[in-house]
């Protein structure tokens, strides 16, 4: 691969990478927050609300991300929702991720041993306190591998944003490939780059996991 190409296109690629990171980080943040809210809403006593949450999750998980993006970006303006490509991309990632995160949180909530909550209840702790100090930390431990995995998946999904012309790394790369005709080399380079990126996200996640679960080492003598 011609190195002068990298000099010429370096700034654009770097800018694209910046947009990729921005979309990923913002998308993850929205997805996590929305997913957590959905999980809580799904636990309320109101049946219609629970059904609505369920339907949302099933629809998002049952349709391709690309279709969701097209609906938001091309279909949105029809009902007056006119978004810039990057905004639509971030929002799309967030909505897409939220359904999966909500399911992860739901499983995590159920995995917190009932006795730990009962112990807190029997001490007279308020629900907010129990949620914050007992349930959330327990959930964090059991859901972190799945959360990290989902964040790695979202890293990969950012390239799909290029299709709706979000100027992220993949988009810049395709521009470069089209202008220089060094298509295959560029794509190969990109493949290796994303391979490393996803690997890095997973590694970081595993390290975070090890930190969070430090206290779980050593078995107890309890028979149960």
């Amino acid at each position, binding site marked *: 691969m011609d190195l002068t190409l990298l000099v010429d296109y370096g700034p654009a690629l770097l800018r694209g990478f910046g947009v990729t990171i921005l979309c990923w980080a913002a998308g993850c943040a929205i997805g996590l927050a929305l997913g957590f809210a959905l999980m809580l809403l799904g636990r309320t006593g109101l049946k219609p609300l629970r059904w609505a949450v369920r339907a949302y999750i*099933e*629809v998002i998980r*049952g*349709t*391709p*991300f*690309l*279709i*969701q993006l*097209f*609906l938001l970006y*091309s*279909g*949105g303006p*029809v*009902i007056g929702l006119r978004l810039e490509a990057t905004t639509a991309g971030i929002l799309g990632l967030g909505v897409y991720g939220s359904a999966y995160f909500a399911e992860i949180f739901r499983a995590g909530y159920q995995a917190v041993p009932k006795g730990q909550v009962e112990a807190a209840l029997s001490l007279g702790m308020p629900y907010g306190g129990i949620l914050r100090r007992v349930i959330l930390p327990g959930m964090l431990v059991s859901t972190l591998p799945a959360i990290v995995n989902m964040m790695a998946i979202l890293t*990969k*999904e*950012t*390239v*799909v944003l*290029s*299709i709706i012309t979000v100027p992220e790394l*993949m988009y810049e790369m395709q521009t470069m490939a089209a202008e220089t005709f060094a*298509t*295959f080399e560029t*794509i*190969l380079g*990109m*493949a290796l780059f*994303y*391979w490393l990126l*996803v*690997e890095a996200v997973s590694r970081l996640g595993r390290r975070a996991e090890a930190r969070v679960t430090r206290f779980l080492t050593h078995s107890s003598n309890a028979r149960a």
Partner: protein
Amino acid sequence: MKFSVIIDALPHLLGAAVTTVWISLLGVMLGQVIGVLVCVARQSGSRAADMAGGVYVSFFRGVPLLIQLLLIYYMLPLIGIDVPPLVAAIGALSLASGAYVSEIYRGALNGVPHGQSEAALALGFPAPTIWTRILLPQAFRISVPALVNELILLLKASSLISVVGVAELTRTSQTISASNYRPLEIYLAAGLIYLAINGALAAFGALVERRLQQG
């Protein structure tokens, strides 16, 4: 919102949906073959085979499918193979699926108690027989839910092959909405079709799973 738009486009969309389904099925079937071969190779005891399999799995699970697709699409002509986009697309889906399937099988094999192969070895079974008669049938049974899930994932992922011009459901929706300027209705319809297919697959998966648990 005009429903007539959807009605008009429906025959085209459904035809494209059939394409989506058979491409995904083919992808998952080829992926199944690749996945089993990779899994067996990795467990064969050869370090080189394990390493090669490991790199394959890591690459195809780590690189975004869109990039894999473009890579294969542009690589084949370079090495003198001129194939229609459809073949490149199916190739990419199969290779990606194979990486996931081999991991599914690896997990399922871990679920088969080690003592069973030992018992077979003690009875004098040759290694290939242990695989075909003891390990793989059980691994398949354990992995059915994961495999159905894999088919659903692949069906959704297949929307990406629209970028190389394969006229499956997503591509067809794009074409139609570009000509009738009704993206909202068309993409909604496409989304519902995907949802219906996936719902049917999930129900089918649950049925098969119940059957296998009974048998």
